[in-house]
């Protein structure tokens, strides 16, 4: 109850005013403010970017899990190593990458050695969001990897043997045997990865960029925190929360729809 009651309270709250208009009903004013705020629009644009990058965030652990499943030498060790950033707090991950990605930091030193000019990873508004998402993927791909491995446990090994006997190459095997066989797991990873991107990047954003440069790395959850904790506009923050919740409901419904469709074809 501690969680469902505030949800209703929050939705209700999003229709009231801030500051002088505290507590009075203001209808949809907060939502209009949101849409007019370039920072929030930027946050929504970044959500779009996350959706575009989602296939990469799913494909990387999927491929790695395939290799581990095929018993690449050292697969046990790889599994343990790949998972380890997932147990670190986003704050620690962000702090470490603050050092690595600094303008005069090690990554640029390595790139400079290869003749590639220094990139202002966290200071260039066109680059910063990609840098943060990249770090997020680095930190969480181990989790999706373990989900994939659990999915592989249900895969029929005879199919793989048959593919091998028929002389199928690795890409052919992946595309024709593994992807269809794991469709449920893949859908599951898509949804959980999306939810992870929407709800667990706060620590990274907070320590790596604080929403900057030029407000280019806002996500809804960071926007909510700024409005609530810094700007003292809880009602506006509630409206943003409601929008975030809607986005997540849509993600959830998409998942349900996909599941139902695949259930029919099976």
């Amino acid at each position, binding site marked *: 109850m501690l*969680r469902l009651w505030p949800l209703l309270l929050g939705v209700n709250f999003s229709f009231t005013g801030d500051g002088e208009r505290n507590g009075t009903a203001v209808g949809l004013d907060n939502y209009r403010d949101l849409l007019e705020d370039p920072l929030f629009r930027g946050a929504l644009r970044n959500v779009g970017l996350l959706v575009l990058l989602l296939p990469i965030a799913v494909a990387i652990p999927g491929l790695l899990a395939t290799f581990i499943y095929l018993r*690449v*030498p*050292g697969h046990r060790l790889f599994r343990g190593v790949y998972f380890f950033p997932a147990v670190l707090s986003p*704050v620690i991950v962000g702090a470490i990458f603050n050092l690595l990605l600094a303008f005069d930091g090690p990554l640029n030193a390595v790139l400079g050695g290869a003749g590639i000019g220094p990139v202002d990873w966290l200071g260039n508004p066109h680059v910063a969001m990609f840098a943060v998402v990249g770090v997020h993927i680095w930190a969480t791909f181990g989790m999706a990897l373990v989900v994939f491995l659990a999915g592989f446990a249900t895969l029929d090994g005879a199919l793989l043997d048959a593919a091998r006997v028929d002389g199928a190459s690795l890409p052919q095997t992946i595309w024709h045997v593994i992807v269809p066989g794991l469709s449920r797991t893949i859908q599951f990873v898509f949804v959980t990865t999306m939810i992870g991107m929407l709800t667990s990047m706060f620590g990274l954003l907070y320590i790596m960029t604080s929403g900057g440069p030029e407000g280019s790395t806002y996500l809804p959850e960071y926007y909510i925190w700024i409005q609530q904790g810094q700007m003292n506009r809880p009602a506006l923050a509630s409206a943003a929360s409601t929008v975030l919740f809607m986005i997540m409901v849509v993600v959830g419904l998409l998942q349900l729809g996909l599941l139902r469709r695949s259930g029919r074809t099976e």
Partner: protein
Amino acid sequence: MSRIGWGRWLLAVPMAALALATIYPLVFTANVAMKTRREYILDRFSLASALRWENIVTAWHSVGMARYFLNSVAVVTCSVALLLLIGSMAGFALSQLRFRGSSTLFLVCLVALFVPFQVIMVPLVRMMADGGLTDTYPGLVLAYVAQFLPFTVFLMTSYYRGVPTEIVDAARIDGNTPYGVYRRIMLPMGTPALLSVGILNALFCWNDVLISLLLMPSADHRTLMVGVTSLRGQYSDDIPTFAAGVLIAAVPVLVTYLFLQRQIADGMTAGSTKG
């Protein structure tokens, strides 16, 4: 056969490279934490000339990491103890005792699992302020318990469903009260689940930054992760001390992971459905 064997070795090379890329950032940080400022500015990559603990000591004492560390330990211990107590009782009740509304309660728990914290954080802050719990340790503990209880109850209920009802029935016939059954049978039988749920909850609470940032504004009450974020501003020109602070916050988690790899990986994956 040999062709496949070669292919496997070829795949192992990029995978090993990636494994190095996974480990290296932390090794780099640990190395920097051992360096003097001068060493760091001259060469970022070279190994520290000696195992030097001064930066760690500086971060521990003068930056206040010791205080933050203790705050975190206290809050996490209380939260996990409460979560396990309530979670095991609720798991027992929801899986073995049939009472009016038990299935509805379980459903509420499931729904709550999918409500992300960001969505309820504004009203939560307000409720905490109304209750006079902002900036108090009990308030933070309460928030953590509320946040991770659905997950705990869900896992404990699923686990206790595997206990045959015959055992519970037999214990009841032998004259045990429901509490007696809980105390003598369910608690001992639930130990493996309680252990792994406990570790996960400890990890979640330890790693949290958003909840603690919202509810504990004063500097004395910071938890360790918030402490790390405050280091960034104070020590932006003293990278080795900053790295030392990060290391202090990371080491407990890393040690836990080294010993309990399997449980953590499997448990976190089971919990990844939660919002």
